[in-house]
């Protein structure tokens, strides 16, 4: 067994050991692709599917994550949005398990539509990694005890965006990976999950970037890679060293993020461009490109052999993942900021006005099977864990679950 294979196997074991069934550990889920294919959240959201609803102490665009019996969420409050909150709720009851507040150490200026609590936190199953537009990266244990604190806004004061930063960190193995990219300064950083110390830091294209990293899972002898998107394209990076393994340099969006499903990479580049990584993970082959499947703000989601995007007019497009051919369109009521989640054979969308749409897609058409008006501004993406669906607004966090 060569060293790369041993490393890949170790990573898989580490992930499996820490990954409890039903967890949703980071932005767009454990695989950072918005797919929870084995989960069975309710597809009828109205009526009695609201398990609980709790009021929040601050604003936020971040999504909840689920770790064991806890739902973790961030928020920001205060006149300058400089009070940072980490909240832990009991997933069964919605009761607050603990809350910690911190004072932002970096700039908190952001567009009125955004919030300092826009990036979604991440977890390795033992710790919480909360990240904010102010570039405060805070690690607590699952009981809320502070483990380490990185004031990346103080360490790198020019790496900020006056419109706000939104990129959510991911965890691969023992590394927390964050993209901190703006016009004035841009870098990606790999931080040791236990100590908080920097493992690596690499320069990135100096341009405002709101996308989040995603994961190219380990396969065979190829270890997992972090995929970092920017206006320049998509870089595959070794999570242990920050070494760029390969680079797709044909440009990409700075708002919706890439996804990996079934081993292929779906990039919001010139519409959608798909890549197939080589078996050894050291290179890639470009498959198809489709300009008709271009996503606006929400990232595209892949399920059941189809890719789904929503444009700025609120029109949902389904495409064939083998060819990129558009199969059908469905008019939803936009605009959408959050990315839908795919679960239980359905897609769960929440628009900016708080309208929820549950869409049942087939190869022939998409059908809205359920709608619900939460009547609050929702810019976040839903999370799915333990057969329940979670969504937050500026004011509330909801859990939707099947009645027993």
């Amino acid at each position, binding site marked *: 067994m060569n060293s790369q294979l041993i490393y890949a196997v170790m990573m898989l074991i580490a992930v499996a050991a820490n990954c409890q069934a039903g967890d949703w550990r980071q932005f767009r889920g454990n695989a950072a692709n918005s797919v929870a294919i084995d989960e069975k959240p309710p597809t009828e959201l109205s009526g009695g599917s609201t398990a609980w609803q709790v009021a929040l102490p601050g604003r936020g665009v971040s999504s909840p994550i689920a770790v064991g019996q806890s739902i973790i969420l961030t928020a920001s409050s205060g006149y300058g949005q400089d009070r940072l909150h980490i909240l832990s709720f009991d997933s069964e009851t919605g009761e607050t398990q603990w809350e910690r507040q*911190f004072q932002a*150490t970096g700039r908190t200026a952001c567009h009125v539509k955004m919030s300092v609590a826009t990036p979604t936190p991440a977890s390795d199953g033992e710790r919480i990694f909360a990240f904010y537009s102010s570039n405060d990266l805070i690690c607590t244990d699952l009981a809320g005890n*502070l483990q380490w604190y990185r004031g990346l806004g103080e360490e790198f004061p020019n790496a900020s965006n006056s419109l706000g930063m939104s990129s959510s960190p991911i965890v691969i193995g023992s590394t927390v990976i964050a993209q901190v990219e703006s*016009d004035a300064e841009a870098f990606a950083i790999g931080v040791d999950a236990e100590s908080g110390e920097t493992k690596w830091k690499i320069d990135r294209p100096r341009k405002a970037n709101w996308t989040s990293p995603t994961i190219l899972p380990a396969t065979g002898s190829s270890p997992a890679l972090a995929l970092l998107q920017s206006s320049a394209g998509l870089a595959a990076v070794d999570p242990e060293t920050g070494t760029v393994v390969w680079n797709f340099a044909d440009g990409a969006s700075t708002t919706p993020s890439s996804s990996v499903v079934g081993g292929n990479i779906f990039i919001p580049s010139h519409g959608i461009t798909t890549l197939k990584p080589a078996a050894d993970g050291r290179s890639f082959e470009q498959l198809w490109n489709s300009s008709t499947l271009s996503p606006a703000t929400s990232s595209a989601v892949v399920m059941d052999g189809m890719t789904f995007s929503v444009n700025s007019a609120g029109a949902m497009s389904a495409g064939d993942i083998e060819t990129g051919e558009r199969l059908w369109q469905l008019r939803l009521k936009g605009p959408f900021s959050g990315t839908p989640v795919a679960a239980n054979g359905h897609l769960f969308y929440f628009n900016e006005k708080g309208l929820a749409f549950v869409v049942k897609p087939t190869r022939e058409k998409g059908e809205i099977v359920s709608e619900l008006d939460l009547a609050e501004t929702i810019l976040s993406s839903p999370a799915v864990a333990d057969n329940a669906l979670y969504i937050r607004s500026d004011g509330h966090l909801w859990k939707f679950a099947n009645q027993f």
Partner: protein
Amino acid sequence: MKTSPFLLTVILLANVAHADDIATIKAVGPGAAGAAEARVASEALTKGGAKNLLPILKSFKGSSALASNWLRSTFEAIADAETKTGAAIPKDDLLTFVKTTSESPEARRLAYEWLLKRSPQLADQLIPNMLLDPGPDFRRDAVERLLKEAGDAKNDAATAVYRKALQGAVHEDHVKKIAKALRDAGDEVNIQQHFGFLSSWKIVGPFDNKDKKGFPIAYPPEESLDLQAEYDGQLGKVKWEPIATEDDYGMVDIARQIENYKGSLMYATTTYTSSKDQQVELRLGTPNAWKLWVNGELVFEREEYHRSTKMDQYKIPVSLEAGDNVVTLKICQNEQEDSWAQSYQFQIRVCDSTGSAIPSSNKTARRETAQGASK
């Protein structure tokens, strides 16, 4: 009553222990330096329980922002545990601490918010006396109460309350609301002076910034500041000219007051007279790229164009000397054609960390500001 030597020793050792733990936490630095040690110290303090709350609060003063967050987190861990078990917290000590304005505003606010969870009536008792508090959150609460009171009052009574509220208001939304009410009532309000905006400048330019290449170039005004000099500019000879703003919020609008030279940059300078050696904040708002010098020292630079702007967008701590201090700004415009990318402007004010204006002690400058705002 006599205290036994053994008990005194135990108390002394306990105090030394928590002092050591606090010192360990205060030693944290960038890059997660000292985090492992701080984790152990925080755990020890947390196990020590409520008796450590006050020492933790007192240690905020002089702590770095990072250390303050460690202290805050430790305080919350203790207070949270004590609350869940229903144990008593040293309420009187915490209340005294909240009232001690020489202590850290952040720590005082932390103590206040935890006290409020158990005694919501404390807000009525404390906040009305906090209009001029060093803590901006306390001030904000005090102003909020006065705004409500003014809203419930009429005519002269309302005006009097708005006047009082203005004394403590440090946030833009409050000042806007108060100024509108007072002006509607026929009162004069000098918002520029209230916030401490620098309104009278000398400006020179344009210099070349095509393709955004001018940002790193040190044009002559960066080399030496000579207000009598004439330079080779982007479009010919240029020299320093006066420019003043009458805008309530101190906005110097180059695009409107001079011209929106695309792909250009300008230098603006003014003199601020400080009554003493002191730490202040220069607060800047601009959608353009910029560099800022105080007494010839570059204090910050930022190459970002048209990603939004707001008052107090940048807060730059600087040291001022007693007497005249020269503030110089390099401001850069790019060549974007988008309608939302045509602003060429800046606003700068001098204030303390709460946002309260620190006026220039130069009487001429003050008079010019007042006259400008009253026109």
